[in-house]
């Protein structure tokens, strides 16, 4: 962008538009503060478990589709061509994932008043070890996520201001805005700002599709152009055998993993009724066709019209060149007409919305897990809820300091971050998906499987660094190491459950 991509000619009017939008979020935070119904954890972290259809759908949408969808997905589609249609499939698989645990988990959450996923884990398995381990894994995944969002936020703001607002100032300023509105209204603030951000994001995706096709011509011409060149023909070719396995691996791993993100699970807890939850999830099932597919189309169009950005070394810097295809497209549109200029302003507002809505949800979720799953049970077991709510706010402010500090100095690609955190998070899938259905599954086998899955996944991931193989193993026979680790995880659970039952039957016979 400014330092890694094209400088975009935003004028004072555009800056004022973005500035007013960001400041309006503080107003929503104040309004949410006035609407609070007390200082309980349920009111602060779950908006009083009273989210209606529009807010629930838009907050699910804005949280699930982040800056990575716009920048990372279009960049990946630029590099991989139609092969990245897998993004449409794996984002659909996320909603399928909800189908397999949300109905039962929602019912349990209404009865047991869960605040965090850790509450469910402890209720279901009665194990402190499992609750702490799963909470720490979820915090790791969300910290990773928040870091990437904060980095993107600073870069976008730097682009919008053409370097007049440096990256560090953008990150710190927007972090402060987020912290203020989040501290004021908790989940209510986050969900209401998400609703606005989700609305802008939906409009942004439709605008993007329109400007991309208007500026670059039909998709069929771009595809024919890619197919005609030997060096780009692979971008329209059907994936080979290993490609097909990786496709399957993506669909299963991302589908299972993203659905159990703690901030997603907490939105299930926050629904006013199961009718509202099912309707919100039903609308979510359509969104991959209006978001991920748009990002893929943009990536493919840009691959045909602006070649040469495939290789990470082409431009250097924090963001790989292919992830600048969206700003490049915006530059073309801005230079074409006055209307195009204002369309791009709205698109950038959508980008900021995408990033902020994901980051604030993740931050709130992290602070709720530290407060409810770690601080309350192990440091202040008898603390009143008002104290814990205040502690949650303080934790969010404390957490933001290292996050901002690392975000300013972080270097890496967005899509790599997405991959690493999911490989770890998906190891928690058996505890949630099986735990919600099986009464016989015990804490011991689940904990053993989780540890085995983690060791196997991380061992493969860093096998090169550990000297076990020539280089680190990202995939095994086309399957992600996280999914292979999940296979090991499930096998250990099955074996340990079988052994435990055999031992208990032998004990029963002896008695």
């Amino acid at each position, binding site marked *: 962008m400014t330092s890694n991509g094209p400088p975009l000619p935003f004028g004072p009017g555009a800056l004022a538009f973005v500035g007013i939008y960001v400041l309006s979020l503080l107003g929503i935070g104040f309004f949410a503060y006035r609407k609070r119904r007390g200082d309980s954890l349920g009111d602060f972290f779950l908006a009083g478990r009273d989210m209606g259809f529009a807010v629930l759908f838009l907050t699910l949408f804005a949280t699930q589709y982040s800056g990575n969808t716009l920048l990372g997905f279009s960049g990946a589609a630029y590099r991989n061509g139609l092969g990245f*249609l897998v993004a*449409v499939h794996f984002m659909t698989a996320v909603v399928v994932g909800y189908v397999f645990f949300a*109905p039962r988990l929602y*019912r349990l959450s*209404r*009865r047991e008043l869960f605040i965090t996923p850790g509450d469910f884990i402890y209720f279901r398995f009665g194990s402190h070890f499992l609750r702490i381990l799963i909470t720490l894994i979820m915090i790791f995944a969300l910290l990773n996520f928040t870091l990437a969002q904060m980095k993107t936020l600073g870069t976008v703001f730097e682009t919008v201001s053409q370097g007049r607002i440096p990256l560090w100032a953008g990150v710190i300023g927007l972090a402060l805005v987020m912290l203020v509105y989040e501290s004021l209204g908790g989940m209510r603030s986050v969900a209401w700002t998400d609703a606005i951000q989700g609305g802008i994001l939906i409009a942004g995706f439709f605008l993007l599709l329109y400007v991309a096709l208007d500026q670059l011509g039909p998709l069929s011409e771009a595809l024919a152009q890619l197919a005609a060149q030997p060096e780009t023909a692979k971008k329209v070719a059907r994936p080979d055998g290993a490609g097909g396995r990786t496709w399957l691996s993506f669909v299963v791993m991302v589908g299972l993993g993203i659905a159990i993100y703690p901030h997603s699970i907490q939105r299930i807890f926050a629904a006013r009724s*199961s009718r509202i939850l*099912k309707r919100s999830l039903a609308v979510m099932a359509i969104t*991959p066709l209006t978001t991920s597919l748009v990002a893929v189309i943009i990536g493919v169009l840009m691959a045909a019209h602006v070649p040469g950005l495939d290789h990470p070394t082409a431009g250097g810097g924090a963001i790989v060149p292919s992830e600048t295809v969206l700003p490049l497209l915006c530059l073309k549109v801005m230079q074409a007409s006055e209307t195009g200029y204002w369309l791009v302003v709205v698109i950038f507002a959508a980008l900021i919305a995408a990033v902020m809505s994901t980051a604030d949800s993740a931050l709130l979720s992290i602070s709720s897990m530290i407060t409810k799953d770690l601080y309350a049970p192990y440091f202040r077991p008898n603390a009143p809820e008002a104290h814990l709510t205040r502690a949650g706010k303080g934790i969010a402010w404390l957490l933001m300091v290292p996050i901002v500090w690392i975000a300013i100095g972080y270097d890496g690609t967005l899509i790599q971050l997405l991959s690493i955190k999911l490989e770890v998070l998906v190891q928690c899938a058996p505890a949630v998906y099986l735990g919600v259905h099986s009464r016989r599954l015990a804490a011991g086998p689940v904990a053993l499987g989780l540890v085995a899955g983690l060791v196997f996944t991380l061992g493969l991931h860093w096998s090169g660094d550990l000297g076990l193989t020539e280089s680190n193993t990202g995939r095994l026979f086309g399957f992600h190491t996280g999914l292979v680790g999940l296979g090991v995880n499930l096998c250990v659970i099955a074996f340990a459950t079988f052994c435990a039952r055999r031992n208990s039957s032998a004990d029963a016979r002896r008695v």
Partner: protein
Amino acid sequence: MPFSTKHDKAAAKHRRAFIDPARRPWVWAGFALLLAGLIPVWPIEGWWWGIPGWAVLAVLMSAATSAFTIFVLIKGWRDPDDV
């Protein structure tokens, strides 16, 4: 056990009225078929409407999965607490 300990008849009837889509075999069968269709391993040749046939099929299968998911959520999930 952490699951419900209420044993009165009304509560039992209430529990039975809850239908979880994950316990319905046709839901599993539907998603398994769709998953098999989603993976681009089928020998689809040629171009449809200026787009490679396999890519058109991938998008159509995605649309079919979305439609089936909506059907499962609306028709396959019944909760007596629905208001």
